[in-house]
């Protein structure tokens, strides 16, 4: 193994000197995993994620990881990482688009088993017709799997969020998986300036005894549920156990809020919050919105921005408060269904002022002009 100095998460995130490098999002994943003290990673190729896990494989070859292999398919990979995590090691994997859907059954089981797995999702269109281009539709499916969801806007976010995801996921009062989502190609294949810490420092190792459930104990939940599943029973105790366990997973995500505030600086990031027109977005739709707001300012129009960094748990209270006085709330998205718009409407008092769009999907770039056109329309 490569010799690295263990430092506190706080030092690595907030104090360690950082160097500016020009790199892709995939390379930012490598830099995060290099410093994350990961024991094991399991991969399966799918564009636009393949390069990330290829680079993690290189880290294994260099001695940064204890174990790395390629699984048979995404379902096998997600099941294997569950096994690794149950065994008490820190584990990482990544997938995207059709790969996410192929592995889907595993995600609620991760959450139900209280496994602190960190998985990166490089989003892409879902078949059919076939597309390898960016589209965030898979996130709509992931919203109710019980896993926590961060959405990275840039390669910098991706680097920071992956490292912080391990620390938040492994808190005893949280201890559920975290998905770090980012838009394929627009982040994974885009070169941008990223500030990273020195490579000779890393996070403290995972302590399996921090788990709130017994590690691989066949007589207790959650593993007991798999050995002797409640589906085989039909009585009040089995219903009540299942129901209370689901609530416990939701409560774990709720308890994570404090850590998201501590490490990510909040579930949302706000600019110019007093503006009449607010744009609420996540991922690279935020980047396109920043350009649109800049263009609007040059025309003398005012608009503010709410960037959602954490989608699960959802920043409902923050959004309710921040949008209360706005006259219009514009929600640009890189998908057809408008799942973020639905989420936002579900927490707002006056949903009539929400503009569900622009929406761009199937892999297209969202021209900032489309968002600017909405700002203009709302300013009239």
């Amino acid at each position: 193994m490569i010799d690295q100095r263990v430092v506190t998460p706080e030092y690595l995130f907030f104090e360690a000197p950082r160097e500016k490098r020009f790199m892709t999002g995939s390379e930012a994943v490598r830099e995060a995993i290099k410093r994350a003290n990961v024991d094991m990673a399991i991969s399966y190729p799918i564009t636009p994620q393949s390069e990330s896990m290829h680079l993690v494989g290189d880290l294994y070859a260099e001695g940064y990881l204890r174990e790395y292999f390629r699984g048979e398919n995404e379902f096998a990979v997600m099941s294997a990482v569950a096994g690794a995590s149950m065994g008490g090691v820190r584990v990482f994997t990544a997938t995207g688009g059709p790969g996410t859907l192929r592995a889907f059954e595993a995600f609620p089981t991760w959450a139900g088993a209280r496994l602190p797995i960190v998985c990166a999702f490089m989003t892409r269109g879902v078949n059919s017709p076939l597309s390898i281009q960016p589209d965030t539709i898979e996130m709509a499916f992931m919203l109710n799997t019980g896993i926590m969801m961060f959405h990275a806007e840039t390669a910098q976010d991706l680097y920071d969020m992956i490292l912080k995801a391990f620390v938040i996921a492994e808190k005893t009062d949280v201890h559920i998986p975290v998905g770090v989502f980012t838009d394929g190609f627009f982040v994974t294949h885009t070169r941008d300036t990223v500030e990273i810490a020195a490579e000779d420092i890393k996070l403290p190792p995972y302590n399996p005894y921090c788990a709130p459930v017994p590690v691989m104990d066949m007589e207790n939940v959650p593993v007991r549920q798999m050995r002797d599943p409640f589906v085989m029973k039909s009585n009040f105790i089995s219903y009540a156990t299942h129901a209370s366990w689901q609530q416990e997973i939701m409560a774990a995500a709720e308890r994570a809020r404090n850590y998201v505030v501590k490490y990510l600086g909040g579930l949302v990031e706000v600019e110019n919050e007093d503006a009449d027109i607010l744009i609420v977005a996540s991922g690279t739709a935020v980047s396109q919105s920043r350009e649109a707001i800049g263009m609007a300012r040059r025309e003398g129009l005012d608009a503010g921005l709410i960037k959602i960094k954490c989608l699960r748990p959802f920043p409902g209270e923050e959004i309710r408060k921040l949008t209360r006085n706005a006259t219009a709330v514009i929600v640009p998205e890189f998908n057809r269904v408008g799942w973020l718009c639905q989420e936002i409407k579900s927490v707002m008092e006056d949903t009539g002022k929400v503009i569900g769009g622009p929406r761009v999907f199937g892999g297209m770039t969202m021209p900032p002009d489309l968002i600017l056109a909405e700002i203009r329309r709302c300013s009239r």
Partner: protein
Amino acid sequence: MFKKTFIRMSGLGGQGVVTAAHILGAAATREGLDSTVNPFFGAEKRLAPAESYVRISSERIFERGEVLDPNIIMIYHPHVITLGKCYTMPFFDGLQPEGLLIINSEKPLELGDEELARLADLKARIFYVPASQIAVEVAGTELSTNLAMLGGLLGVTDLVSMESIKESMAERFGGGKFVASGTTAALDDVLKSKFAKLSQLIEKNVEVIEKSRSSVQEYLIN
């Protein structure tokens, strides 16, 4: 020239548009400018359309994805225009007023009257550079076409210096740290195998860039 310079490089898979964009973007960041670079392609295929985009600005760049409104369009192969191997139709779609076109061809292509009229309306300037020819003559390999095209760009703009391009090139081909896709890595290996040493690769390609820089010819519309 432009406050923000957005460049679209249209070429064919295997010609190195992604690598050229990488080297140009890295050179810009070396000079303290902000730059983002991204490719656009389908499932990878040699000779299929491939594009890459470079954004360079003295201010922070947020925008991502395809460049829809380029100031500069670089055409790496005549087929982009003559066979429509391009993601946009016509090939200069979205070109901004007073934009530049840099085309790899030994002689001017026959553009339609309508296209020329539209380019004239935009006050666009068209430049031709025999990039592939220079690559073969000077470096002995057509794989240097992408760097010859960067030479063409240096010939008509002062976006970045030759020195920064040289340093970025050394970083791109020199360090073992870079990881490209499987196909790109294979092409890198082919390129490296053509030269005895890395220093020779850099030297020859600098020569390619210098030669094409001075070989750019403007085609005057009317």
